[in-house]
């Protein structure tokens, strides 16, 4: 399946235009780059942040604990002020009943002392004889049964002057508002005898706890207090609905909960010398942990990378894909059949070289095509010429007149002979069909031709034939001999004014068939020999015939001319076998 998909993708990708490929590639690179960048940053940051959070948390918790303790120390100092107050001591030592005056004075003193301290909601001073005085800011219920139970007082006696902290006085007090109370309880001893005289209870509001973390809270960071029995003390926040949010019996404890990206750090700290367990919940905030300088660095890195990629992309587009696209478009014009050269201003690099090579190739192709056309034209011209040669009206009409004369003056035998020869000649001469005929037929044409010419020109020549029977069946292009013989007669024999010989020789040597036409006419000098194959030459029949043979066999060396002025001319055709 995956292999299949990969193959499909590969096929699709390779079918895209180069430009598209580059685009996709860049898109992929940019995406990959960004993802990688984000992931690296993310994990790095997270780890950093965790360490920082965890370290920081403990410090914060300890400092909150210290705040609370210092607050309690203040309360302790205040309690000592109360205990050493003259009026209060007087009240504790008074024996008479009613002691309204003493109690009144003590109450006044308590007001005076506590007035300058925060958090205090009520102060009770219980004498051991169950007499007591108190002051209070709100209404506080007192459950006296609790106070007298041995269980409740034991620890206080054991502390012997040290303070004990209990929530709601260990069940002895309850605020009417329902807010929990933090009770500060200690034994009051007689300064002189050091015997217990009373129990002092200072009920403090939960604002004492709130104040301890007042400046440390934020929407991402909340604190909670638990008592020694792991009961939550309501300080204003609802307990979050987190299962793990439960204190354990350890001085300090920290856990991380929540899914990726929504982590929360839960921490618990048992504040020493108090019954309180401080709990904290902190939501992780990544932004907070990325320092602003590094944000700038990151942004500029990303920007620089994107800029570089875009720059490379533009470079590739401008210098590679666009020129190639234009080149391809220009080359595409050749599809319409015009092999037109590409004339684009392309840079002088590999693409420019490609264009030049392409152009050079086109030039070559055009040259080849022209050569082919030229060759085709020449072949056609040669064939046309051969056709015109075939008709030979001049020869026919003159021969007819000759025969007409024979009919009028000579024997009918001669006329019959002449007409038969003429008929044979034209039958072979004009025969349609294959362009190749056996050499025997070709020789026949020449024989008939010369016989007719003898009638016309009064035996001014003799014709001789030296024929090799073995080669007579070899096929040769039609009408290659007659034009040569005609040339011999008109350009060699007749200008000489003497009786001459025209001799046809055929022979085979190695892989060549040689056919010679010899005449001992006027011959040619070198100068004339040189012009024999030129266009403006009068003996057109010769040139046309040679060219026809050359095209037919696709080679140049198909003939040879030997001549001596005033003596002879011999044209030899070389036919490859």
């Amino acid at each position, binding site marked *: 399946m995956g292999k299949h998909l990969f193959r499909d993708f590969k096929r699709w990708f390779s079918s895209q235009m180069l430009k598209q490929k580059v685009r996709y590639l860049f898109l992929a690179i940019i995406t990959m780059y960004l993802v990688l960048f984000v992931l690296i940053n993310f994990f790095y940051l997270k780890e950093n942040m965790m360490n920082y959070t965890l370290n920081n948390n403990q410090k914060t918790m300890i400092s909150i604990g210290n705040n609370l303790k210092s607050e309690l120390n203040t309360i302790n100092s205040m309690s000592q002020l109360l205990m050493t107050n003259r009026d209060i001591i007087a009240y504790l030592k008074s024996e008479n009943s009613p002691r309204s005056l003493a109690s009144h004075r003590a109450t006044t003193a308590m007001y005076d002392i506590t007035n300058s301290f925060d958090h205090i909601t009520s102060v009770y001073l219980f004498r051991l004889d169950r007499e007591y005085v108190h002051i209070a800011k709100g209404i506080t219920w007192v459950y006296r049964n609790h106070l007298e139970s041995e269980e409740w007082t034991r620890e206080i006696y054991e502390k012997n002057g040290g303070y004990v902290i209990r929530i709601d006085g260990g069940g002895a007090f309850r605020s009417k508002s329902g807010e929990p109370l933090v009770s500060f309880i200690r034994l009051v001893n007689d300064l002189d005898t050091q015997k217990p005289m009373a129990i002092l209870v200072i009920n403090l509001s939960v604002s004492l706890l709130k104040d301890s973390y007042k400046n440390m809270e934020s929407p991402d960071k909340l604190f909670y207090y638990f008592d020694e029995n792991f009961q939550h003390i309501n300080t204003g926040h609802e307990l979050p609905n987190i299962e793990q949010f439960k204190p354990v019996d350890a001085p300090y404890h920290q856990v991380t909960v929540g899914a990726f990206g929504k982590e929360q750090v839960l921490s618990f700290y048992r504040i020493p010398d108090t019954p309180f367990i401080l709990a904290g919940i902190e939501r992780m905030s990544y932004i907070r942990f990325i320092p602003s300088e590094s944000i700038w660095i990151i942004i500029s890195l990303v920007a620089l990378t994107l800029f570089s990629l875009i720059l490379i992309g533009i470079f590739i587009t401008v210098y590679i894909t666009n020129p190639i696209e234009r080149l391809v478009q220009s080359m595409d014009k050749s599809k319409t059949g015009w092999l037109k050269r590409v004339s684009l201003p392309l840079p002088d690099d590999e693409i420019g070289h490609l264009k030049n090579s392409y152009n050079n190739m086109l030039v070559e192709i055009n040259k080849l095509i022209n050569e082919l056309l030229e060759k085709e034209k020449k072949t056609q011209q040669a064939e046309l010429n051969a056709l015109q040669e075939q008709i030979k009206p*001049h020869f026919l*009409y003159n021969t007819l*007149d*000759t025969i007409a*004369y024979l009919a009028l*003056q000579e024997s009918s035998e001669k006329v019959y002979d002449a007409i038969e020869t003429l008929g044979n000649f034209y039958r072979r001469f004009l025969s349609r069909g294959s362009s190749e005929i056996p050499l025997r037929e070709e020789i026949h044409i020449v024989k008939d031709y010369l016989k007719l010419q003898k009638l016309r020109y009064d035996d001014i020549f003799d014709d001789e034939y030296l024929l090799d029977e073995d080669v007579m069946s070899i096929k040769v292009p039609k009408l290659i001999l007659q034009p040569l013989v005609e040339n011999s007669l008109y350009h060699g024999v007749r*200008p*000489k*004014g003497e009786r001459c010989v025209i001799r046809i020789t055929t022979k085979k040597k190695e892989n060549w068939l040689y056919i010679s036409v010899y005449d001992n006419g006027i011959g040619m000098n070198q100068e004339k020999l040189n012009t024999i194959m030129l266009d403006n030459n009068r003996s057109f029949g010769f040139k046309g015939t040679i060219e026809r043979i050359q095209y037919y066999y696709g080679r140049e060396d198909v003939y040879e001319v030997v001549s001596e002025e*005033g003596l002879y001319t011999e044209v030899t055709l070389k036919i490859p076998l």
Partner: protein
Amino acid sequence: MYKVMLIDDERAIRNLLRITIQNQELDLEIVGEASSGIEAINTIDNYKPDIVFVDIRMPFMDGIEFSKLAIQRYPKLKIIILTAYDDFEYARSCIGIGVSAYLLKPISRTEIRETLLKVIDQLKVEKREEDEDIIEDDQCSIAKIKEYIMKNYMEPDINLTSIAQHFCFNTSYLSRMFKQKTGMGLSDFLMKCRMERAIAYAKKGTRMYLTAREVGIPDPNYFSKCFKKYTGKLYSEYAKNDTSNMANES
């Protein structure tokens, strides 16, 4: 009675023409034949024809060249060009130089008859005027003429008429005067010059066709005829004898 001359390189065709023309029973007489333009130039002054038939294709001097010369020298001469079909366009362009008609080969008797009738009509219209400008002359002019001939006999196109025109004589007058003064016809004198030179060449063993060219009769066939008539021997015999003589001598 009008005089006709036939010029064609094929004897058979000349004969055919002769028979055909005679059969027409027109008021015509065939006075001479020539087998080439060269022969015609040399003999036309003897025959003084009114009409010539000229084949367009002949070696050494073709029908067109001959016609151009003839029209220049014999303004009254009627020239009928004979041509095979593949020369037809060429022949037609000759009308411009002043030939009277052209006939296509193979020869058609009707066409020949019609053409001849037309030409005879033209001849009848053009009166024969034979002004004989008698020019006072002296020995001097004859000497000049001889000198001219001896200088120019190798030119193939000179004949009695062209010499007369050169010296501004009437042709027949010149002919008569020359014969009277020298005891020899002018054409014969020209031939004598050529043949004497030819004999010299023959003795050197020069090939006949070359000699013929050198002495102003580039048609070797006609040359050979003239040579035999003049010397009574074939050129080849002359040449052979002479070379054997030379061989004996050496």
